[in-house]
């Protein structure tokens, strides 16, 4: 067998060329990954030339090289952010000790679980989104979808690198399983629920990238604080890419809202739907659904695992070093609303056990900023409607509020009232049928689907109408 030129095939800064262990692992995994991509990646566009950003190094400019590439030829690379000299564990029980370059045996299983859970989300979203290219509202949007997809693929590579490099045979088995599970599959579902939900329309895609990928940002941020240095460096580099996904989602929803406002103004009855748009109230229901589903991803409000992860120095808080002065989180409490005997009351929880909630709080603040920007856009469009975020207790499927009848204001109501009013608050079947009916592919690079406003600018200095995706040569 001819030697594989790893360096050009797989851009990396982890000395893949000389690492026999990694090479052996990838010899088997890389072809399996390509099979998976060809089978589960974007349907019908694998031979198109797509104007994509590729990371070829961690140098400034190196992580964002633009050019046309067919997706299966995308150079999925392995990058760790540059090491920080004399980095120390900055929280938990090992505070002040040098960070670990190798997995401490004591935490091996826990770390593997953390990494596998994060890794599982990356291919899952590619699978969920694989049909969306066929209904892209513009060539510009189609390109963004594919950019998100290939980068989720790269994030899978990044996590698989950790499994291959640090977890031996168990790690290789887990890496194989990551390619065996399938989003929404009855037999081999993805680990987390939100990643088994279908993504049948572009409003869902925008909400997913805005809310669900934002959970990813916060998870990666918390893991970037990790005392296991390779995980920290991997996550720091991934965060630079994640920002693009969030902006695709945030601006996507904003463009749907703007267009909804514009069409409502045109319509004599103020009905965006009559003009073929998506009413703002309907978008609100999508926001509610995906925001709440994404809140579930942070785990239970009161969590033994969260306390263990923090105590062990494996998973910190968002901006642990910058935003906090005290880093043991011992003898501190977090006040939390809990339901006892059918009533909301407040309870003090040991801070370490509330770390999921602390991270969720940071996430919620971030999403509030996003919603404020949407509302500025609605104000600019001259309509009175505003988007609001529901309470973190509404429509939860995990944690202490799971399956309890809360309204979007976070008040306990009767189950009957919840059932009666759910159609106001969450997408109905009829909503979904309508939104799906709007989904038609727009192939002309200069055009946008009627239900979405054009973006302000194109990609990498190119105009919006640039031909970001080109069909294969006949």
């Amino acid at each position, binding site marked *: 067998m001819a030697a594989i030129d790893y360096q050009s095939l797989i851009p990396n800064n982890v000395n893949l060329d000389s690492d026999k262990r990694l090479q052996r692992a990838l010899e088997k995994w890389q072809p399996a990954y390509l099979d998976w991509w060809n089978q589960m990646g974007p349907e019908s566009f694998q031979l198109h030339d797509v104007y994509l950003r590729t990371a070829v190094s961690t140098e400034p400019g190196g992580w964002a090289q633009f050019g046309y590439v067919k997706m299966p030829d995308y150079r999925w690379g392995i990058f760790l952010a540059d090491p920080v000299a004399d980095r120390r564990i900055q929280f938990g*029980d090992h505070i002040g000790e040098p960070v670990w370059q190798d997995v401490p045996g004591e935490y091996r*299983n826990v770390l593997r679980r953390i990494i596998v859970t994060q890794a599982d989300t990356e291919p899952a979203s590619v699978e969920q989104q694989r049909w969306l290219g066929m209904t892209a509202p513009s060539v510009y949007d189609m390109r963004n979808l594919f950019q998100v997809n290939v980068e989720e693929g790269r994030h899978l590579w990044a996590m698989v690198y950790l499994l291959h490099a640090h977890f031996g045979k168990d790690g290789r088995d887990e890496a194989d399983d990551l390619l065996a599970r399938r989003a929404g599959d009855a037999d081999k579902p993805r*680990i987390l629920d939100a990643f088994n939900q279908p993504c049948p329309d572009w409003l869902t895609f925008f909400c997913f990238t805005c809310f669900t990928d934002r959970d990813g940002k916060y998870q990666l941020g918390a893991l970037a604080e990790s005392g296991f240095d390779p995980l920290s460096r991997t996550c720091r580099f991934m965060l630079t890419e994640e920002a693009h996904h969030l902006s695709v989602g945030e601006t996507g929803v904003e463009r749907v809202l703007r267009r909804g406002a514009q069409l409502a103004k045109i319509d004599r009855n103020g009905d965006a739907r009559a003009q073929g748009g998506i009413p703002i109230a309907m978008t609100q229901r999508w926001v509610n659904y995906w925001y709440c589903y994404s809140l579930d991803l942070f785990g239970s409000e009161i969590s033994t695992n969260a*306390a263990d992860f*923090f105590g062990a120095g494996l998973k910190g808080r968002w901006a642990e070093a910058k935003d906090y002065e005290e880093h043991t989180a*011992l003898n501190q409490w977090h006040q939390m609303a809990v339901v006892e005997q059918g009533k909301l009351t407040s309870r003090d929880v*040991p801070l370490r056990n509330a770390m999921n909630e602390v991270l969720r709080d940071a996430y919620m603040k971030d999403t509030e900023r996003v919603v404020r920007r949407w509302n500025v856009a609605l104000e600019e469009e001259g309509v009175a409607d505003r988007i609001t975020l529901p309470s973190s207790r509404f429509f939860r499927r995990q944690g202490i509020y799971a399956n309890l009848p809360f309204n979007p204001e976070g008040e306990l109501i009767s189950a009957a009232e919840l059932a009666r009013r759910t159609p106001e608050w969450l997408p109905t079947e009829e909503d979904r049928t309508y939104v799906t009916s709007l989904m038609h592919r727009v192939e002309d690079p200069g055009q946008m689907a009627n239900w979405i406003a054009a973006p302000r600018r194109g990609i990498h200095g190119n105009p919006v109408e640039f031909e970001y995706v080109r069909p294969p040569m006949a």
Partner: protein
Amino acid sequence: MAEIAYPAVNFETHPSRYVHWHLAVNGNVAVLSMKVQEDGGMWPGKYELKLNSYDLGVDVELADAVQRLRFEHPGVRAVVVTGGYDKVFCAGANIRMLAQSSHAFKVNFCKFTNETRGGIEEATAQGGAVYLAALNGTASGGGYEMAMACKEIYLIDDGNSAVSLPEVPLLGVLPGTGGLTRLTDKRKVRRDMADVFCTKAEGFKARDAVKYGFVDAAFPRSRWQTSVDERAAVVAAANPGAPDAFPVLLEALAPVWTDEQHLDYRYVSVRFDRAARIAHLTLRAPDSAPSASSATWSLRAWRELDDALLRLRVNDLDIGLLVVKATGSAQAVLDADAALGTQGWFGREVRLFQARVLRRLDNMAKSIFALVEPGNAFAGSLFEVVLAADRSYMLEDDDGENAVCVTDVSAGSFPMHSGLTRLQSRYPGDTAAPDRVLRHGGTIDTDAAGTLGLVTLTPDEIDYEDEVRIAIEERASLSPDALTGMEQNLRFGGPESMDNKIYGRLTAWQNWIFQRPNAVGERGALKMFGAPERPVFDYKRT
């Protein structure tokens, strides 16, 4: 956390009152599904039974279901034990409950759950229903131990669900309620793979679990229900069961406290002398002719004894000595025993139950003295109680009327955990002795009983009262821990069986580890579970 001072536990329940289990019988297959109510714990407000974790109350229902399946649904040939929630079968014993329990309670809890599991295994082994565990989600700790009590284990293969015994890595204690022993002795798992399994908190998912024998088969989600149903149907069809069986509804026992010191059943009375830490247990012989119903003495009286033993164990920790007498007509006991021999399935099933009660007696962490006095009813099945006692005192009366009666039920109807009969166990150095006793047959007077070694001491009328009083007072003065250890050692002489090992190791290793600072000290693993800080171990090996 403060230890819970708990109210008396009631071991009687009925399917109509189950909170956590649902029993559905469909033809020759029954489904027992576990859907533990989080707020339905025995001590409301102290802990939540999350993730289908269990406390004693949950296991009391399971034990009741297993017992009722035998008597009330004898047509059932296969029982599928499964979970009522998606994604989790059972997370084992509730850790917060354990953390708040006294050591004595933990021991009793583990013992009872194991007796329930032993009951499941016995039902399977004795031609009743074959138990099958259908793990529709992760089974960890006691959840997997419960599954191991079943003959076959199926695990859903959904890429997530696993079987695990995470006690060592997560809690610093043992999967000691039979878990370790069943891995090696029952499932015949290689010991090195068992070592890997027991130190890997997340356990093994379907592929490895099947490969190394931790489960028997795995089915994908889309074929889960049909695969389990098919397997249950096959197992049920292959199990001939007992063609002459008929449903016997188990009537309620409903004992009465006549005052603080007296708990009365129809055939059993318990008189508490709490100051002296003694319970006087009186077993009364049948007062009516045998029948094939739950009112018949052979079933009713033994269920009463069983219930009384459970209450004594869990609710009366201060009682250190059981003084047992049997009163009434010895002949009536022999008649009742004989009737069972003619009652086919019913007789056999009742005898198996009596054997379980006697094993429960063997497992008591209390001293047992039998007092054999004139007019006693220690005959046949009841004589086994004398054999189970740590000591027996038989009055040598002037008239020579005091007697016991050994029958052939002592030749094998009531095996101990070791597999030996109590007669075999009694004479470790004399293999001919059991036969000698059995050949003697009929009534055995005090003199003969003493010669045959069937009783410990045979004081005459002048000495008897004082001998007994002194023995009781002396017993009450000794260290309760040393006594429990001594009695368990002496009761279980002879060979080891899987059952034997389970209880022996439960009372030795598991309890030792449960007591150690590394588990229950201020920074012990069990104490720290769920707390924001991590455990601190004293790494010295003992």
